[in-house]
């Protein structure tokens, strides 16, 4: 987490004074202020003194370093007591959830009889706790600055091509090509991915079908254009089902994984004005691995997977030149990065930015037992 503190300190060291109209001297056009109740401008903001860089730095440091003990400390330093209280409540809820889930595991010494019920609760509590910590950091660093906005529209079609590098002591592969295609019609989404390592033939194919219950969908004729809807909300709730087929040729095994996943995103403007421009994601699911060992005749090995993701992100830019970046934890131990240590999953940073209506870049960095980085181009329609 030290690098987050470093980033926040760097951001504060180049703190550009925000003008009265909200422009920070960058190329991003100021977000339109809908009125006094707009979450992009807090009540009384015009009359409140802007925090000094030193104060912001102190707030960011407090949000992170003793953040476990001083919930909402970043907001509190900035004088945003309501924000600090909300973050404290979220953090407290996360901690309480964690403890409630952990106690049966502790008492039973990880008995099979409690793991399925308790472990997801533990990880969920960890997710809420992490989310609250990062929200405090975000508010400490970014509140009062012009925020990014949710994507101007949800594309019907996205085509991605990536170069991927995986650094894993356990496997010879390193370079991969990836092609991904996503199509959306209404609330439905279909996605396909293909990864291939020319060096050792490692190949992964995945298909996924999803339904979006809540949230923005591909634009139709009735939708207002982005300029007419500055209060776009990127929150969504989506249920997906997927199938992954991953072949390890030199190691002589093939893994097939059906899985389902429920993922939700909430724009945190809904929670507190200081968090406008940021979002949190929480997702959970279940999968079953079927491993076919080439040197073994007979039935496949089966193993369950508890899937869980928590992410904190921020929108970048607005209108068609926009994107997002998010810091995330992914609990799955079967991905390229593997788990970090012990029972932990891996951590990562993912971002995407569209330079124009159709073209953008996409990047990813993950660290578990292995390191995975991806960089690619995206076309949307």
């Amino acid at each position: 987490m030290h690098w987050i503190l470093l980033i926040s300190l760097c951001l504060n060291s180049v703190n550009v004074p925000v003008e009265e109209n909200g422009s920070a001297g960058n190329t991003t056009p100021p977000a339109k202020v809908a009125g006094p109740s707009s979450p992009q401008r807090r009540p009384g903001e015009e009359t409140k003194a802007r925090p000094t860089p030193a104060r912001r730095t102190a707030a960011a440091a407090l949000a992170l370093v003793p953040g476990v003990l001083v919930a909402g400390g970043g907001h509190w330093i900035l004088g945003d007591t309501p924000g600090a209280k909300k973050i404290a409540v979220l953090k407290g809820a996360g901690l309480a959830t964690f403890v409630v889930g952990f106690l049966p595991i502790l008492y039973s010494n990880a008995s099979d009889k409690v793991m399925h019920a308790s472990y997801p609760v533990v990880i969920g509590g960890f997710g809420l706790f992490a989310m609250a910590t990062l929200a405090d950091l975000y508010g400490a660093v970014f509140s009062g600055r012009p925020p990014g906005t949710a994507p101007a529209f949800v594309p019907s079609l996205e085509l991605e091509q990536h170069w991927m590098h995986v650094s894993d002591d356990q496997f010879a592969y390193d370079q991969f090509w990836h092609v991904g295609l996503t199509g959306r019609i209404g609330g439905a989404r279909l996605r396909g991915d293909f990864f291939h390592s020319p060096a050792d033939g490692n190949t992964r194919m995945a298909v996924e079908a999803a339904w979006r219950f809540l949230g923005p969908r591909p634009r139709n004729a009735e939708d207002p254009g982005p300029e007419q809807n500055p209060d776009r909300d990127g929150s969504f709730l989506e249920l997906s089902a997927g199938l992954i087929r991953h072949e390890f040729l030199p190691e002589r095994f093939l893994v097939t994984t059906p899985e389902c996943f429920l993922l939700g995103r909430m724009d945190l403007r809904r929670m507190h004005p200081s968090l406008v421009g940021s979002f949190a994601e929480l997702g959970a699911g279940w999968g079953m691995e079927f491993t076919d060992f080439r040197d073994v005749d007979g039935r496949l090995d089966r193993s369950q997977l508890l899937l869980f993701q928590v992410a904190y992100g921020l929108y970048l830019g607005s209108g068609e030149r926009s994107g997002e970046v998010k810091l995330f934890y992914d609990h799955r131990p079967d991905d390229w990065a593997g788990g970090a240590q012990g029972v932990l999953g891996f951590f990562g940073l993912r971002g995407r930015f569209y330079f124009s209506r159709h073209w953008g870049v996409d990047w990813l960095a993950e660290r578990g037992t292995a390191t995975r980085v991806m960089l690619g181009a995206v076309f949307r329609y």
Partner: protein
Amino acid sequence: MKLFRFLLYISLLSIIGCGDGPGQRADFDETIGSAAAGDTQISVRDGLALVEVMEAGRLDLWLSAPTQEITFTTGPSAVSDWDLTLRNAPADSVLSIVTGDATAVAVTTGLPTEKHWHLRLPPDAVTTVHIAPPDAGLAGPIRIAMLSDIQEAMSQVQDIFARINDDPSIRFVLSAGDITDNGSAEEYDRFRRELGGLHVPFYATCGNHDVSIGDMIWHRQLGRHSFHFNFRGAAFTLADSADATIDPKVYRWLEAWLDDGRDRWHLFITHLPPVDPNGVRNGSFSSRREAAKLISALAGGAVDLAVFGHIHTHVAYTLGGIECHISGGGGGWPMRWDGLARHFLTMDIDPVAQDHDVKVVEIQ
């Protein structure tokens, strides 16, 4: 007490994999079994014994396997009379001179697992001695025990040792680690004292608790973390997975060990199960891909049986067609509601028939 245990669990979770890394431990493994004093050098084949003391005329070894081959290289001014002490050795071990004109006289000791010889080594010569039970090289049935995850229950371990001692057909005890609760030197000292109550040798690989402090305490107390030996026609491989991974260097050793054991009955032991039968708990390797790679290698190497620790109960299951047992019944943080008391396993192995039978022995 609950709060203490909660904090302890959090701290243990946070330090899993801390201490010395698996790569460092593999590097140190390579240094085990070699030493020099004055004009005499010794080398233990495959690093299967830790040199505890080597000074002019005295050599003390702690064994990691029931069969040993020790080579002495003496210079012109080397000391000729040596007291050789082997600890953690089978009680029926005998010493034979393989090469050289040395002489050896056995000396009686008090402990069944401590063997003593007086050696006279010629100067300017290479002398190889072989120490093993008389039947070590003859393929035939053997019974061994398996005991892991003792941890904070070390004060109760003597009742398990007594049960093992009650069965004179058990040749030695193997362990998948977590002998100690936090890997401190004091705990290892204590455990070695406790081993005085066991009449057969105890060979182990390390668990995550054993290396949580690091500082190579295991290495200094018990020798190698990963090793391989043969006994009575069966092959035994113990691999260090204390960090929920196996170091690439150990995988390279494993290739050779699998080749050696391909035509023998072969037991593979490591602390963490590559895959937890309860996938949601996932008390296993950090990476499922690495786990599958290991299982694929073990299946390709025709391993007959695999035993793990870490999870404090007993589970029998299969991975890659290999019969696997998780046995963490040494008493450390026992799992509740599993219907099992503290336990160890006995394994009746018939290397000729390539067959085995595993039984759970509960300590009520």
